[in-house]
């Protein structure tokens, strides 16, 4: 199993947890008449994780929504150059993002979620930090693949609603 496959399965698991938590919210309130204060916070936290873990996974296929109509009119060499410049810019952003996420993680390491005392806000920022490192890794790998000539662009339609 590749890292990407493992991440995909992990994200599917996060989605399953999010679904269970949201369902529990309804059961606790409507069936057991004891509203669960923790469930909304946990569902939101799982959504944040789902988005960032998923964004890192999709980064390898470069399946994020993009407009390619203009770029597709250029020749293969120009397209490759644009792709590399784009990735370098994205890496720059992700480095800044990772730096900020790390600082936030350290700053909030002892701060709990409020409704769930065993989850710290710092844990959430740490997962954002890890995901940003993964994105940097995948972007760098794709630059290397492009330079070597082994890069293959994926079909973005599959990842678009």
């Amino acid at each position: 199993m590749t890292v990407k496959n493992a991440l995909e399965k992990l994200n599917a698991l996060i989605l399953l947890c999010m679904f269970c938590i949201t369902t529990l919210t309804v059961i606790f309130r409507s069936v057991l008449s004891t509203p669960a204060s923790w469930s909304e916070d946990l569902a939101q936290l799982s959504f944040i994780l789902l988005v960032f873990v998923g964004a890192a996974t999709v980064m390898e296929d470069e399946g994020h929504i993009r407009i390619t109509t203009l770029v597709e009119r250029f020749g293969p060499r120009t397209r490759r150059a644009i792709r590399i410049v784009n990735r370098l810019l994205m890496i720059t952003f992700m480095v800044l993002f990772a730096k900020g996420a790390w600082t936030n993680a350290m700053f909030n390491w002892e701060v709990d979620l409020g409704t769930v005392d065993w989850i710290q806000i710092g844990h959430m920022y740490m997962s954002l930090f890890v995901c940003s490192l993964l994105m940097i890794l995948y972007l760098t790998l794709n630059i290397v693949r492009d330079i070597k000539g082994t890069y293959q662009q994926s079909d973005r339609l599959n990842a678009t609603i």
Partner: protein
Amino acid sequence: MIFVLTLGMLVLLLAGMPVAMAMALSSVAALLVSGMPFNPTILSTKMQFGLQNFVLVGIPLFILAAKLMNTAGITDRIFRFAGTMVGFLPGGLGHSNVVASLIFSGMSGAAVVDAASLGQIELEAMKKAGYPKKFSVAITAGSSTIGPIFPPSIPMIVFSFASGESVGRLFLGGVVPGLLMTLALMTIITIRARKENLPREPFPTLAIATRSFIDALLPMLTPVILLSCIWSGIVTPTEAAAVAVCYALLIGLFVMRELSFRQLVHVFVETAKESAVIGFVIAAASLFGWVLLRSGMTTHIADVMLAFSQDPLIVLLIISVFLFAIGCFLDSTIAILIFAPIFLPVAMSVGIDPIHFGVAMVLNLMLGLLTPPFGMVLFVMTHISGLKFDEVVRATLPILVPLIAVLMLIIVFPVLVTGLPNMLMGVAQ
């Protein structure tokens, strides 16, 4: 700052940069040139904060429910049932196509999902029955836009997130426009069918009608269950999405018995991936929106528009023309996230109801799915029909006429949108 923000994003978008990254990078560039102190912690803070909204949890869950229903073979049953209901009318399968989309929209909420799943079955059936391929493509593309208008609707959830308006009211506000779109498309089909003598299905026997009704009954109950749960206050719209998933799982696993474990895993993986793509754009849009607000651009645009006219109808028409043009180039989620915070305050300042504005905005942007160069439904239709992209575009353009007519109707008569939510949930304060 405004210049760097807008020009930066435009250049990056045209250079093929992922939309989320284009938003995030132009926001960073605008912050750097503004001269304000820049702290990288703001990036992760704003982006995760944008996702900290319980309403957004509904997006992956509604996608999951639609995918589960689709994998369980429900789309086939819905199309068969629609055929027995309206197939005997002139241009029968065209009507079935539209009615099936209306029923399917009660569980999907996304046009591309409708076009890609139901579209294949519809095109195949229409081809077998001898309908012109271009006509079939046009109707399938047009009918798929009902999905995001009729509840539940993913773009409405996104609008609710961007504007802070009630998802329940937005869902209810989309019911009448969704039905009007259905009627408008069916009218066009009848006119074409009479003119070109298109085939119609035989009138169904009672046994066939009953059989197809029973087959499609459970999936058809989805929107009824969801709306009644939301309306009665048992669940919030986000929780309704979880109820929809439970219901889809029950039908798929125990009634239809067509969902295997392997299929379930695949559906969960794909849903997580698609949700992450949308969520990442939302996260970046939160950062972008924050910078946009600091740049003063929203106030500037409001001043310019209000100096031009303060008549609600004219303001809404101007915004609609702008959004229609934008919809041709930008994905609806992104357009809502960028422009709802800009235009909604302008609309509200001249007395336009936010629910009316939201539904009109979503309907308007859905038309962008059918217009070149970036109409996603056009890409899907090209993919599944085997026609060339320009052939699909030429075939689909006439179908925009009835849909634009519905848009105009709801712009001029706000009660068509606000009537139902006001009646069932009371007038908003």
